[in-house]
């Protein structure tokens, strides 16, 4: 199977290709054409055509086509690259090159389908009821009678996508419905979702020239970030730091999501174990929304032991086993290096390994490695490992007085706070350390798609600005 680049409607077969192989057997799975940054640089000069193609279609029609695309993506057999691909083919291919169990690939598919199926409701929620025509025309009159204008900040959104977490693709699914083209640099080992989604979009009638797929090396990402006025990149804490303060780039890094047990609920901790286990282990712990720490003022040893009893026995299973819950680390040496880092962290004072009794955590394969779920107890928030996040089910149970939690937790993408204490709730709501906040026992991994994630994507793609029309100048305008 060969996946050519897709230059806003034109396939391009490169002389240079990556060869993707099965993470267990080494069997060839696909070749992916690789292009250079300069090719993207050239094509970006015509990015305006991507948006123009979308604006030629009624916005409600676009939403309907996206809903159709969702069905095609989840259930159809599509032309992807030079091959026909069924949903089962997709699941097997994605699992083979990413190391994710097939069951998790399937559940990510369902997530994407859900988002596309509910696109109308999502847009209504994210835009707070703004008529979509306003984004198409650039301005219009709101139901309050006020002229509002939204200015697109870029004709296309560039995305430097990761290889390790097929869950992130939901973030870019609404972009086309907002009248903005998509420019995707697929992850090296996970071209599958971008290619299948693009195929489904186009088959459903989304203009082919509104989508670009540019697989390549880091220079493609660099060109995208430099040449696109709006782009997103998924990366490490270092990547986040590099683009901090650049308004054109939205960086999605580690989430450091957490569960905070309030003093009023912590004595009933056993009632919340299911929520904690799901938050830590869903999707093999790969997401930024997976919890990497539980904070509580007491019972932390008991909580760690109970979590270890639930998570510790989870073992490696073949990717096609419906019970498989652990993804492999497919980059050679990555699992071992991660485990060595954890072992070094475990040596610090006040740190203990709660899953030690459940067998070795590092499992070495012939071509890859795995890390089994790991629960760590920290007597204080001070040890370095208390702030660690890894790409597998890994959680710290940290003892910390409630009064000091918010100053100690650090940046937290999703916080689930189990408390009925109104004062603590008010402090949580005010805390700038927390992005998404769940009050009550809601798993950190359970997202309400009608609410914004890491900022509202409409605010990123559009700028609300003033536009006055002489014929319509409202009374009372300052002159």
């Amino acid at each position, binding site marked *: 199977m060969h996946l050519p680049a897709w230059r806003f409607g034109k396939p391009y077969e490169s*002389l240079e290709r990556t060869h993707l192989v099965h993470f267990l057997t080494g069997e060839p799975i696909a070749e992916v054409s690789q292009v250079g940054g*300069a090719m993207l640089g050239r094509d970006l*000069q015509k990015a305006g055509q991507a948006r123009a193609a979308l604006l030629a279609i009624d916005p409600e029609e676009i939403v309907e086509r996206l809903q159709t695309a969702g069905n095609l993506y989840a259930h159809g057999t599509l032309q992807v690259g030079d091959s026909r691909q069924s949903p089962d083919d997709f699941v097997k291919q994605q699992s083979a090159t990413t190391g994710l169990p097939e069951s998790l690939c399937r559940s990510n598919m369902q997530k994407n389908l859900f988002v596309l199926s509910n696109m109308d409701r999502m847009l209504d929620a994210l835009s707070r009821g703004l008529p979509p025509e306003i984004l198409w025309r650039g301005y219009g009159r709101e139901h309050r009678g006020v002229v509002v204008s939204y200015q697109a900040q870029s004709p296309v959104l560039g995305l430097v996508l990761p290889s390790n977490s097929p869950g992130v693709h939901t973030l870019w699914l609404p972009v086309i419905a907002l009248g903005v083209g998509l420019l995707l640099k697929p992850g090296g080992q996970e071209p599958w979702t971008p290619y299948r989604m693009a195929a489904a979009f186009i088959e459903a009638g989304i203009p082919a020239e509104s989508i670009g797929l540019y697989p390549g090396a880091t220079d493609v990402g660099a060109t995208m970030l430099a040449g696109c006025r709006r782009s997103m990149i998924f990366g490490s804490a270092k990547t986040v730091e590099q683009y901090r303060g650049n308004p054109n780039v939205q960086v999605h890094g580690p989430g450091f999501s957490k569960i905070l047990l309030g003093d009023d609920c912590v004595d009933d901790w056993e009632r919340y174990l299911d929520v904690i286990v799901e938050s830590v282990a869903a999707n093999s712990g790969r997401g930024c929304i997976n919890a990497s720490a539980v904070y509580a003022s007491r019972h932390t040893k008991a909580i760690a032991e109970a979590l270890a009893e639930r998570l510790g026995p989870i073992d490696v299973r073949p990717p096609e086993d419906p019970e498989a819950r652990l993804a492999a680390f497919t980059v050679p040496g990555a699992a071992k290096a991660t485990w060595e880092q954890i072992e070094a962290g475990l040596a610090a004072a006040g740190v203990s390994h709660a899953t030690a009794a459940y067998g070795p955590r590092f499992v070495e394969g012939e071509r890859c490695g795995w890390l089994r779920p790991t629960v760590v107890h920290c007597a204080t928030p001070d040890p370095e490992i208390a702030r660690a996040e890894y790409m597998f089910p890994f959680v710290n149970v940290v003892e910390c007085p409630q009064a000091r939690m918010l100053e100690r937790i650090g940046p937290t993408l999703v916080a689930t706070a189990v408390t009925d204490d109104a004062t603590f709730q008010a402090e949580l709501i005010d805390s700038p350390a927390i992005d998404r906040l769940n009050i009550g026992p809601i798993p950190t991994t359970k997202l309400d798609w009608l609410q914004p994630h890491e900022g509202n994507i409409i605010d990123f793609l559009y700028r609300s600005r003033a536009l006055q029309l002489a014929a319509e100048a409202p009374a009372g305008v300052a002159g």
Partner: protein
Amino acid sequence: MATVNSTAKPPVFEVADDAAVAGARAALDAHTVEMMAWHFHPSTGCPFWLDYARSLSFDPIKEVGCYDDLKKFPPFEDEWLRGGPVRRWIPKGFADQPAYVFETGGTTGVPKSRVNIRDFRTDYEQFSDTLPEEFFPRGANWLMLGPSGPRRLRLSIEHLAQFRGGICFCVDLDPRWVIKLIQKGWMEHLEAYKQHCIDQVITILEAGHDVRCMFTTPKLLESLALALEKKGTTIRKAGITGIFSGGTEFTPQWTRFAVEELLDGAYMTPTYGNTLMGLAASRPVVPADGYTIAYYAPQPRAVIEVVNFDDTNSVVPYGGTGRVKLTTLTKETFVPGFLERDEGERELPYAKYPWDGISGVRPFRALAGATTVGVY
């Protein structure tokens, strides 16, 4: 996951016949003997080699009778090229000549250096013969966009232009600063610096200097072509007919992209070179050959061998992959069997250059992670 060139390589070029290969080999053997006589004679050799010869178990003048006998030398250590005194490398036979020193790398630590009397001029004069007149007309003016400073490139290109009867305009680029920008992650500064270079080039091209030939690197060529495209013009329309370029990012795919989308009909010839070797010309790069870029060293002044990674005294079979081993045999410089930081595939002798070539040149896999390449 590995990036490979998926193109099959039928031998679409004219392979050198056995007689030509044997003739070139005999010339190389004779040249080697002549070079031993020069570099190891007390009246002409340089202090480094005369001193080093005392530690050898053989007499290079008497016991090197052909090129293969150079294997008797222990491996050449590139650390010897770092630091002074640099005069230890100047042959006594040239002691009274004005000398240049050129450096490689140098982002961290003491760079490697090579002294030159007029080797760089000789190298580029010989290379001049490989340039097609149609695209590199004699008397045309040149533009050099690349590093000057401690490198020999600017002086060499300028000499090439002068040797062909032209005048060379120059725009400088400091690769050591570029590497620092990349290492610091200052991508905005990198972009601004690149733009600063390209702006200067466009100013020269628009100033009525009748520049028709150009040296630049692949990355800068891309930037220039895109900048011109934004202005509604092209490299060819700006007057450039011939481009000579170099660097390990010269892949078949990049060349195809440049030919199809950047050059607008201007001719481009890739080269492979460095301060030690001089400059290797390429076989014509054509679509029928899958845009294969195959280089041939300027024998007998320099020899490239593609050697086994583990046994660097034996070459790999034709088409096989190995490390670049370089031997420099000029009267100014003798460097036997220097292992380069590059690897590639061994190519059949070409009619015009009847000795081994190399294609697919890229950073040596064992060192690639530690090197910043393709920076300018």
